[in-house]
């Protein structure tokens, strides 16, 4: 359930949407959750997302999962995972996480050289752990708070801090340096499909568990990011927090 950085495939569009969201939502009133001051706006965006995702994105991704041979799906996942590892190494370094950065850099070198440019994840077979670090987490280690929660259509749950991280990633990611625009866009597209496919499994569980999917996802996203930031050692939460 990696809440991934590759969602920025839609990032260039959504960066604009995010800033628009913040401006518009300033006008609304009565936030119930301190983490989500723009809740009315976010809920609207969530509804938009549900329609687009439910009618177009999800059926397409489901078809991809059902009809693409598994080894090909795995190869695609490995290819983008290799890019993620590079980002994880860089952002890990930015956060002063030397061991994590070292592992990820090692993974990138090994998988790129011996895994046909990242198509095969040799490093995982060799037991080198994946760091899964990103810009949002790096900003977190520098002391930046999450800031308001944002729900962005196609992109999903994020926050001002994590969203900023995604925008930075979108402008610095290696795919962006490809000179050929169609190739680049195809890669973005495949990356987005792969990422959405990863989330399909947890979805039926959320449907079963949630009283209100919007709130459930928000809480889960924020908890998960906190957990990643503190690498599993989250300072205990107050029993009553309202």
């Amino acid at each position, binding site marked *: *359930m*990696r809440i991934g950085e590759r969602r920025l495939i839609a990032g260039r569009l959504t960066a604009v949407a995010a800033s628009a969201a913040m401006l518009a939502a300033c006008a609304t009133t009565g936030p119930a959750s301190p983490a989500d001051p723009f809740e009315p706006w976010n809920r609207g965006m969530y509804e938009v997302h549900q329609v687009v995702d439910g009618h177009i994105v999800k059926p397409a991704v489901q078809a991809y999962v059902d009809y693409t041979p598994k080894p090909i799906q795995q190869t695609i996942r490995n290819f983008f995972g290799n890019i993620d590892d590079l980002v994880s190494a860089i952002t890990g370094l930015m956060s002063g996480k030397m061991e994590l950065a070292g592992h990820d850099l090692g993974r990138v070198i090994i998988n790129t050289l011996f895994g046909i440019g990242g198509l095969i994840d040799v490093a995982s077979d060799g037991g080198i752990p994946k760091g899964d670090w990103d810009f949002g987490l790096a900003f977190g280690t520098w002391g930046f708070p999450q800031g308001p929660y944002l729900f962005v259509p196609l992109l999903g749950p994020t926050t001002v801090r994590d969203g900023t991280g995604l925008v930075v990633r979108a402008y610095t990611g290696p795919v962006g340096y490809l000179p050929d625009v169609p190739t680049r866009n195809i890669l973005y597209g495949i990356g987005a499909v792969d990422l959405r496919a990863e989330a399909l499994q947890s979805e*039926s569980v959320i449907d079963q*568990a949630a009283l209100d999917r919007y709130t*459930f996802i928000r809480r889960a996203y924020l908890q998960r990011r906190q957990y990643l930031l503190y690498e599993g050692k989250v300072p205990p939460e107050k029993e009553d927090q309202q």
Partner: protein
Amino acid sequence: MSMAIRAGLAALAAALAFSVHAQEAPDALVKRVSQDVLETIKSDPKIQSGDQARIREVMESKLAPNFDFERMTALAMGRNWRQATPEQQKRLTSEFKTLLVRTYSGALTQYRDQKIDYKPLRADPNANDVIVRTEVIRQGQPPVQIDYGMEKKDGAWKAYDVVVGGVSLVTNYRDEFSEQVRGGGIDGLIKTLATKNGGGAK
């Protein structure tokens, strides 16, 4: 106390105990119950063919007795728990239990030969509140951490929280519960839970 003496005492205690399980260490309990449930899922033809009712039956009989649902409900309610009457608390607990059991059942149907790595327990032997850590190893995917918050009550260990990849399945409900209470009071929450569970609230 040396390990040998402690082991000897533990063996003695186990022999004297009313029930062996009452003396079982929390990590051993998690391991035994998970393996039992996963074995059942793998070997039961009805479950393999996707029989939800049978899965729930297994969950009820094997898993549920090891959870402290009242504590889970109180945790999910936060400060609203104390606003509820004993009768309301009872109904909340029963509805929340149903919801949790169904959610787990649904999650377990996705179980496909994944291996579980049980981490050694790092806690004071006299502790009454521990975290048991496990990791689900998936082929070609990053592992998922599942931690169980466990408390010793009347000599037996019971789980009061399940944290999957940093997301607590109990406290994750806190926002939703307080939202419901704000909207329709505690009875409103009970009604929503009952409707979600398909019981139809009265």
